């Protein structure tokens, strides 16, 4: 396959970036998208050019590191996968592929396709934890019976890998799906009740401080989330926040 690439190149956080065109030949349809970028970088390095910087780590869809906007969609054209799980068979010979970093004020570009996602870390640090000792001494977490439906919903929320596709897809660059998933995974469990009110208030407050946009319920985040995190979590966060704030 021969493909034409338009890739965002930006030297550092302070410089102005621009789209740069590359042509890549000999692309195999069984290559993953990241392997295709590896091949491009090998070529660039052999020509003495600066390789394209992009985030990647586990390459098996669980770390949430690979964060690319591909042809206008986070993680590319397929559903429920990350970029590392995307293969070149999803494209055709002669295609032009536009690759850009996540765009959000709260996710500034560090270099090329890499953005700073520590805003998510700070939201998590604001309340995404429990202080109950569950080591088995003195409290065994498994000793508390939990309804199957509650446990399932909590686990579903906890599958959020914090990749940021929700922010990238949302026309408002809103981080509500991420924050809601992190609130929900604890809000649904008895172990999460101790700090429930503080958690939702502090995490929402931090989300606002980071400069993410407001949710207008377009549902783009849910569609593009590689883990299929449901909008139900945002509704749960809205309930939790209202109840926590009104009760004081």
């Amino acid at each position: 396959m021969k493909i034409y690439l338009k890739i965002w190149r930006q030297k550092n956080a302070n410089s102005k970036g621009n789209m740069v065109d590359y042509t890549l030949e000999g692309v195999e349809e069984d290559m993953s998208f990241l392997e295709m970028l590896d091949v491009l970088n090998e070529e660039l390095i052999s020509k003495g050019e600066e390789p394209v910087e992009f985030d990647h780590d586990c390459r098996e869809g669980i770390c949430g590191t690979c964060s690319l906007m591909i042809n206008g969609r986070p993680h590319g054209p397929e559903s429920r996968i990350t970029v590392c799980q995307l293969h070149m068979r999803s494209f055709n010979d002669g295609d032009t592929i536009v690759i850009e970093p996540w765009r959000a004020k709260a996710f500034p570009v560090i270099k090329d396709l890499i953005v700073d996602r520590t805003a998510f870390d700070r939201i998590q640090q604001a309340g995404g934890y429990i202080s109950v000792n569950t080591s088995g001494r003195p409290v065994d977490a498994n000793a508390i019976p939990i309804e199957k439906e509650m446990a399932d919903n909590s686990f579903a929320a906890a599958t959020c890998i914090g990749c940021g596709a929700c922010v990238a897809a949302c026309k408002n660059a809103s981080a509500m799906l991420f924050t809601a998933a992190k609130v929900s995974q604890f809000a649904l469990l008895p172990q999460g009740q101790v700090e429930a009110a503080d958690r939702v208030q502090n995490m929402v407050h931090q989300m606002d401080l980071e400069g993410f946009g407001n949710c207008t319920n377009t549902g783009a985040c849910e569609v593009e989330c590689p883990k299929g995190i449901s909008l139900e979590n945002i509704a749960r966060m809205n309930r939790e926040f209202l109840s926590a704030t009104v009760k004081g």
Partner: protein
Amino acid sequence: MSGLIKSSLARKYVMALSGLFLVIFLVLHVTINLASVISPDFFNEASHFMGYNPLVQFIMQPVLIAGVIVHFVMGFVLETQNKKARGSVGYTSYKGSANASWVSRNMIYSGLVVLAFLGLHFYDFWIHEMTYKYVEFNDQDPTRYYAETVEKFAPFWRTILYVISFVLLSLHLWHGFASSFQSMGVNNKYTPGIKKFAKAFAVVVPLAFAFIALYHHLNPITH
């Protein structure tokens, strides 16, 4: 409570509650308007009651106007903040249609058309009414409303503007009505039913408004 006032979630609640309030008002409005097609006498009676009842005039009407203002001011605030949140550089390629409906992504535009329509509608009916009562100090006339309404829809251009606005109102409600439940934290086993009802409402109510405008345009009062 101070946290609530400053929060992004508070803005969602305000949009949702003011929107739901305006939806309830639409039900009342379309019901009275339908009377103008079915029974001109009843329409005159209902309009006279709405026009001269102190509770409606001095409590409900200001609350309604406040509801409209809050809804559109908050809409502008949200839109401005959301535009800023994308950052200084936007996407070269962004396929919004791949993951969200056109209507949900363009609420500001459907809202602006409805707002512009409200300007015309206020000019046509509300300002006329205020002038009749509080500027010219005319005597009460419980029989005038039907004829005045039909007369308004005589020009083709006004009828068409009204119908176009109702189409945009329909699009606005198509996303906004069901969305307000999600904003208030309601997403459960009843949600599919709520969405169906909201979408039916978004079609039926504006359709009824459009029908009334067209009916009066096509059936002028002949003396």
